[in-house]
């Protein structure tokens, strides 16, 4: 036991000891299971009235179970973690944790494990309930395993996200409200995708056919899609809130951005590597030529994730102190002058060279995103030029060349990234004390209130659904809108909204507007940075004169 003892996180153990004894946990636990059984029985009652086939009953019961579980995950699980850190601060126990030599990662990891264990107890205890569906057939153990895998992964994501929120906010009420708002937004991204995947698996099997078309089960492409991409996306999404939580718990403000930079470099480069592997594998396995449709789909997806990572980075760096670059360089030269050459190789100083500072952070995100896109574009161009392209059906449809098409999508993402990076830097120069939270709220509300409805209107028109219809609500899903914003220009129909001026598609307006506003913010940031630099110099001079 002593061997395992050192691996036990004290906060995890304390969380289990203290929370599992509360009546609240007991009531929530039993009520959830009872509700799930009730929903299943009610569903079965109505299905038996309609005299459905037994396999259909099994599938429908499984659907009810999955939806109920999803609701529990979305509504109950945030409660386990959305107050986890803020309650320590409000309850005056946080200082005791820090002085007990628990690092920010110990605290976040312990709180995560504690909340996730509670979630796991809920999920596992409902396993006997789903066995009802197995009585009727139509369900495979594989489906159950996949569903549980997805539910566990989604619970982990929600728990970590709520932990990050609870580490940022200063009151419990605000943390709870913010957590549930974020979960609602997240659900609007995730729920359509999960629902589609489940329905497809149960009834249509379109995804299976797609897998066969891109090389069949056992091929590298399908292996990448099933086994590499989901864990990659999961870790890249869960790691961002982990870093946010860890950074906001640091006592000293230095080196906060280091992990965020490492996060960018690792996940952005991995993403690029995965997509280039897709291409190369296509060449060697499918027919020595690149599939045009695959290029479009891959680049759209790749740029979409780059955009999402950049958005996280832009918001993350907004919390940094707006330290001018010159200041950091001066500190470095002082070290050199003082003869502490060996210190140059000290990792702490190396990190000082990289950051901190939102202005530097913002530019870092922009540089990285444009670098990834350039590698992607040049790589694609090189492969297409040397190996050729197949599937001219799509190629003929486009009026632009394939590389121009990709470049436009890349520029859409870059302009978006640039705009948000410069906006968040602008905010961190202006908001002093509560810069991080306000910058995040401002950026998210701008994204949700202004950009998404605009995209929604735009694509409702593009899809010719610009009429009064309840189905139009689907266009308010952020995932759909962001995905569609990367749609090929040639897919846009020649309507008034898409081509405001003859033959200039809306994508170009998008790029122009974001880059233009981004440049304005950039100049403002540069000015603010210089002003801050002058102020620091004056302060330093004042101190020297005093001495």
């Amino acid at each position, binding site marked *: *036991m*002593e061997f395992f*003892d*050192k691996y*036990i996180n*004290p*906060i995890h*153990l*304390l969380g289990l*000891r*203290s*929370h599992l*004894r*509360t009546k609240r946990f007991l009531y929530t636990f039993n009520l959830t299971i009872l509700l799930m059984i009730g929903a299943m029985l009610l569903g079965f009652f109505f299905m038996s009235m309609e005299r459905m086939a037994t396999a259909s009953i099994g599938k429908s019961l499984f659907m009810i179970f999955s939806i109920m579980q999803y609701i529990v995950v979305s509504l109950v699980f945030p409660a386990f973690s959305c107050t986890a850190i803020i309650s320590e601060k409000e*309850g*005056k*126990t946080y*200082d*005791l*944790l*820090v*002085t*007990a*030599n*628990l*690092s920010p990662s*110990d605290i976040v990891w312990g709180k995560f494990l504690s909340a996730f264990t509670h979630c796991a107890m809920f999920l596992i205890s409902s396993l006997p309930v789903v066995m009802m569906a197995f009585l009727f057939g139509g369900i495979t153990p594989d489906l159950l395993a996949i569903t549980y895998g997805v539910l566990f992964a989604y619970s982990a994501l929600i728990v970590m996200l709520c932990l990050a929120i609870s580490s940022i906010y200063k009151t419990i009420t605000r943390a709870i409200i913010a957590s549930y708002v974020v979960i609602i937004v997240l659900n609007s991204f995730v729920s359509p995708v999960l629902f589609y995947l489940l329905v497809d698996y149960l009834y249509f099997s379109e995804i299976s056919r797609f897998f066969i078309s891109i090389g069949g089960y056992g091929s590298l492409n399908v292996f990448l899609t099933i086994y590499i991409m989901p864990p990659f996306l999961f870790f890249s999404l869960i790691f961002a809130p982990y870093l946010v939580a860890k950074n906001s718990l640091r*006592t*000293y*403000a230095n080196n906060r951005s280091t992990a965020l930079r490492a996060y960018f470099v690792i996940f952005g480069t991995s993403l690029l590597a995965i997509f280039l592997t897709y291409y190369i594998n296509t060449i060697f396995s499918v027919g020595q030529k690149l599939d045009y449709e695959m290029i479009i789909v891959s680049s759209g997806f790749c740029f979409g994730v780059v955009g999402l990572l950049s958005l996280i980075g832009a918001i993350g760096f907004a919390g940094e102190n707006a330290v001018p670059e010159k200041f950091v360089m001066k500190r470095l030269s002082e070290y050199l002058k003082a003869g502490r050459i060996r210190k140059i190789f000290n990792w702490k100083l190396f990190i000082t060279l990289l950051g901190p500072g939102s202005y530097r952070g913002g530019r870092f995100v922009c540089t990285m995103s444009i670098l990834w896109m350039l590698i992607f574009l040049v790589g694609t161009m090189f492969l297409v030029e040397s190996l050729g392209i197949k599937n001219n059906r799509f190629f003929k449809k486009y009026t632009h060349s394939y590389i121009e098409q990709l470049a436009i999508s890349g520029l859409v993402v870059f302009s978006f990234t640039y705009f948000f990076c410069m906006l968040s830097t602008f905010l961190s120069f202006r908001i*002093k*004390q509560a810069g991080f939270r306000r910058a995040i709220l401002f950026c998210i509300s701008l994204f949700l209130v202004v950009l998404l409805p605009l995209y929604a209107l735009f694509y409702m028109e593009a899809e010719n659904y610009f009429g009064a219809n309840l189905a139009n609500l689907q266009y308010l899903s952020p995932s759909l809108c962001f995905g569609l914003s990367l749609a090929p220009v040639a897919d846009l129909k020649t309507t008034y909204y898409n081509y405001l001026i003859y033959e200039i598609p809306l994508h170009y307006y998008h790029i122009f507007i974001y880059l233009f506003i981004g440049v304005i913010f950039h100049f403002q940031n540069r000015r603010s940075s210089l002003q801050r630099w002058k102020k620091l110099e004056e302060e330093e001079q004042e101190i020297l004169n005093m001495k």
Partner: protein
Amino acid sequence: MILLKNLTKIFGNFLAVDNLSFEVPSGEIFGFIGPNGAGKTTTIKMLATLLQPDSGNAWIDGHCVYTDPEKVRMAMGYMPDYFGTYDNVTIFEFLDFFARSYRIPPKNRTGTIKGCMELTDLQKLESKLVSSLSKGMKQRLCLAKTLLHNPNVLILDEPAAGLDPRARIEFRSLLRELRNMNKTVFISSHILTELSDIVDSVAIVEKGGLVVSGNLQTISQLSSKNHTEVRIKIHSKEKIETALNVLENTDEIINVHNENDSILIEYSGQTENLYLVIKNLVNADIPITEVTSSQSNLEDIFMRVTQGEVS
């Protein structure tokens, strides 16, 4: 030992701690006193690695609080002025949590916890829930938690606040016991009478800056500008007038005044010659019952220095 060098903290436009520099010798009980808003808790939080200093630095047991916070935390035990507890766990589980946090090996853990409980007189309450403890008991529990990793330095922020008289006396004896264990105790308190009996040296702060620091006798002498204040208690009230006359005609006495059954004098001569003053009084047949030098009275020093008499 603790060393502070030009420690400064600014919150917005408010200068909370202003260039604070002093040293706490090892093995001493050091009182850190000052009026409300003087920056005591801010300084303590910087020492406890909970706040980042804006400039200056501090070292605890030879470790820098800014560059080696982990080593500082292992060398120091911190007890905040207000603290919370985890209510649904027992006292043993609460201490076990902190013992695990301090990475005390499993072999020694239970023994260490029991030892700390014994020192703070909590061993009988081992399996009681923390939520059922009184304020005084929670203070003891927090002190037990502070001692778990056997730190050389203890930083206690208002540890006696809210305790009843008996608990305070017990707490004082506990602090003496810690001094005997050769631990450096850095203690901040408003209750100066509590401190004056036990502290070896003090630092007095006001408006974020250091007013005076050092051992009690030195400060007392400094603060009274080489005068020693002496309180002479006289048994008979009728003799007070005579005593006042005798004292007014004695050399090296600057000021004399009557306060109930006592006479307060300000003596500017050598301390070793003070007995001559007493001798004059005895010769004049004055029934003296008590003579106390007020130089060790922390309350008086505090009142004098924070009113600007010494600066």
